[in-house]
């Protein structure tokens, strides 16, 4: 895209090349940023509305009905306008610097993780070979914003929330990492695009149906992911019935809404991650786009439409994940902090470790997954092969052994 | 003066950043009285060293890429990161123990060396 802008700037605006190149890069970067920021911001608008509607329905209410027509779909926008106009309050005893900077830390971390998140083959902010790892790592910074907010507020409720968050982080990170390793191990790469493309074809090519161990791993992953984005039943840092509002008790207006955007942003993020790692990413249950030939080989436009459909597919899957999280939130009571640590460390970690071992043995003895073992044929003849870099890596190593 | 932005950087520039972080860490360790501040100084020192390892391991930061450490640089940096995490955990446990026993986190007060 940068080249496109650069050539156009030179041709039509008649800029010198020395100016056009940096300007082209900046414009291209701006467009990428704007697109991704829209995913976070518009996504948050939609999901907050969804949360209110689902919560209403679960509690036998209607939820928002007035703003923006029958379904109240503009409710979040109205709330946002209200939040912008609210006064930005800060407690007198608070640490002004930390208090001010904490919401930005949370939001930036949540947003930065989108950098490496692909939405279709090749549609990614920055193609990273270690995308899975990078996303998990950057999500880890988000808790730092929560902790700083809790400490900087100089309020005991906030501090309690921050302490709980810190205790929760060290407990969920271990099983979450273990769960992510399982699909990475099957795919043989940490590149999310390669992982997504590897699950093309019929629905049984999805990694969740790869073998029984990955099936269980997904549920552990989902539990830990819920804990990592501070959603009920793991929303101890917030715990509105115990700690007023936990770490963001003292926040108001726009700063508060940054925490909210960060929360919904990372909720969508882990859902997309789950969709790519376990549910085939941008590949549908039946490879319709491939059957009717919507891919790069039939021209750029066909590839574009195919990618667009794939992205829609991915977003639908991820929205389903978010909906399940909302459903869980309004159905289950909150755990106590010791119960959270017990769940994560005493149950999820051993289960995830066993599943890791099981999946490792499975791909060693039954390569190709459950369905390949059952001789289920794929109409399009997809066979799961190791990632190119893994193959390249394995060859010389074999040679050395001989 | 040549425009810095148009010149390629090399190992030297990375080493300069590493040196600044290293010295910051040393000064931090020497001047902080809070035990956890000293710990942060150690993290800075280890990171300054890590920058050098990574820079020397990079394939394109030297004129002669055959001179680079290659993968060894990255592997050693990994070990440094892991050991730093382990060191932080133990040092933190010691600091918390010190705090529990002496109701202070000031390292200047830790001068008795007995249980």
């Amino acid at each position, binding site marked *: 895209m940068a080249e496109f802008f650069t050539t156009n700037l030179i041709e039509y605006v008649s800029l010198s090349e020395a100016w056009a190149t940096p300007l082209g890069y900046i414009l291209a970067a701006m467009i990428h940023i704007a697109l991704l920021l829209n995913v976070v911001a518009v996504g948050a608008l939609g999901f907050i509305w969804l949360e209110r509607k689902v919560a209403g329905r679960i509690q036998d209410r209607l939820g928002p009905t007035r703003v923006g027509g029958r379904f109240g779909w503009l409710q979040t926008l109205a709330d946002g306008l209200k939040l912008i106009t609210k006064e930005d309050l800060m407690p007198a005893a608070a640490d002004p610097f930390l208090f001010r900077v904490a919401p930005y830390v949370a939001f930036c971390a949540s947003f930065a993780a989108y950098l490496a998140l692909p939405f279709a083959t090749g549609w990614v902010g920055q193609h990273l070979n270690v995308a899975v790892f990078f996303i998990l790592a950057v999500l880890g910074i988000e808790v730092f914003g929560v902790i700083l907010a809790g400490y900087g507020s100089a309020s005991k409720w906030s501090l309690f929330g921050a302490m709980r968050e810190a205790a929760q982080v060290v407990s969920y990170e271990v099983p979450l990492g273990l769960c992510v390793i399982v699909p990475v191990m099957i795919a043989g790469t940490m590149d999310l695009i390669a992982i997504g493309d590897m699950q093309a074809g019929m629905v049984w090519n999805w990694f969740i149906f790869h073998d029984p161990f990955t099936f269980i791993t997904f549920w552990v992953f989902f539990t830990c992911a819920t804990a990592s984005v501070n959603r009920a039943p793991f929303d101890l840092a917030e715990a509105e019935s115990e700690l007023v509002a936990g770490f963001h008790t003292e926040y108001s207006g726009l700063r508060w809404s940054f925490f909210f955007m960060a929360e919904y942003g990372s909720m969508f993020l882990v859902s997309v991650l789950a969709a790519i790692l376990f549910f085939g990413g941008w590949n549908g249950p039946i490879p319709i786009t491939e059957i009717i030939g919507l891919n790069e080989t039939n021209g750029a436009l066909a590839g574009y439409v195919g990618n667009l459909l794939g992205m829609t597919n991915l977003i639908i899957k991820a929205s389903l994940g978010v909906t399940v999280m909302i459903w869980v939130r309004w159905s289950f009571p909150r755990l106590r902090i010791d119960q959270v640590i017990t769940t994560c460390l005493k149950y999820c970690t051993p289960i995830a470790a066993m599943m890791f071992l099981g999946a490792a043995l499975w791909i060693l003895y039954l390569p190709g997954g459950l369905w390949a073992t059952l001789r289920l044929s794929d109409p399009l003849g997809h066979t799961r092969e190791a990632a190119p870099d893994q193959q390249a890596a394995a060859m010389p190593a074999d040679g050395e052994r001989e | 003066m040549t425009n810095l932005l148009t010149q390629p950087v090399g190992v030297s520039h990375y080493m300069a950043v590493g040196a600044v972080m290293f010295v910051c860490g040393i000064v931090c360790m020497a001047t902080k009285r809070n035990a956890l501040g000293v710990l942060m100084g150690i993290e800075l020192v280890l990171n300054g060293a890590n920058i050098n390892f990574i820079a020397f391991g990079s394939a394109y930061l*030297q004129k002669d890429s055959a001179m680079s450490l290659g993968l060894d640089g990255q592997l050693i940096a990994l070990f440094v990161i892991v050991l730093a995490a382990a060191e932080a955990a133990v040092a933190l446990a010691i600091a918390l123990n010190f705090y529990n026993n002496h*109701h202070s986190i000031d390292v200047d007060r830790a001068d008795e060396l007995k249980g």
Partner: protein
Amino acid sequence: MDQINWHTFFFLLSALGACTFALMVVFTSNIVRMAFFLVLSLTSTAGLFFLAGADFVGAMQIMIYVGGTMVLLVFGVMLTAQERFVSLKTSGGTWSLAALAGGALLAVLLQTAFSVDDWKAGDTAQAGQSQTTATRIGLGLLGARFDEGTSGYLLPFEIVSIHLLVVLIGAAYLARAKRRAKPSADNPADRSD
């Protein structure tokens, strides 16, 4: 005007972040702010790692240092952050001594860094090409180094894993919940402040 070297541009950005925040760690006396600046400094360092082509180590840096170690550290800070320990002032003598030693060290290190001509400029044009380091690092840790004829790092890897286990047990043992000593008159440590 010459072409802007984007590698240099992002290097300067990350380097500026790393150095500035490292200096702020030194000159801030508030322990929680120090932790925050340290996080920013370490994240900028991760940016430098990405620029030098070590993407796996960079992600590892963010994950372990920023996500793990710093959360641990902040946890410790919050456990001990009583009013009188948040900002411990250092005497001017210590400061001047540290500045003297640090300045001398910095001068030596900088002179060393720029002493070799081969190190001054690299061929950063190929920096954009991504190469997979994760697989090679993984195989290297398991003892298979196919890029060079040397043996890998299996033994250090095993030693480190045992070391981590020992550290885990040791830290848990050291920090286990004990009866806290009550501040009382017979404890000289409490009387003196």
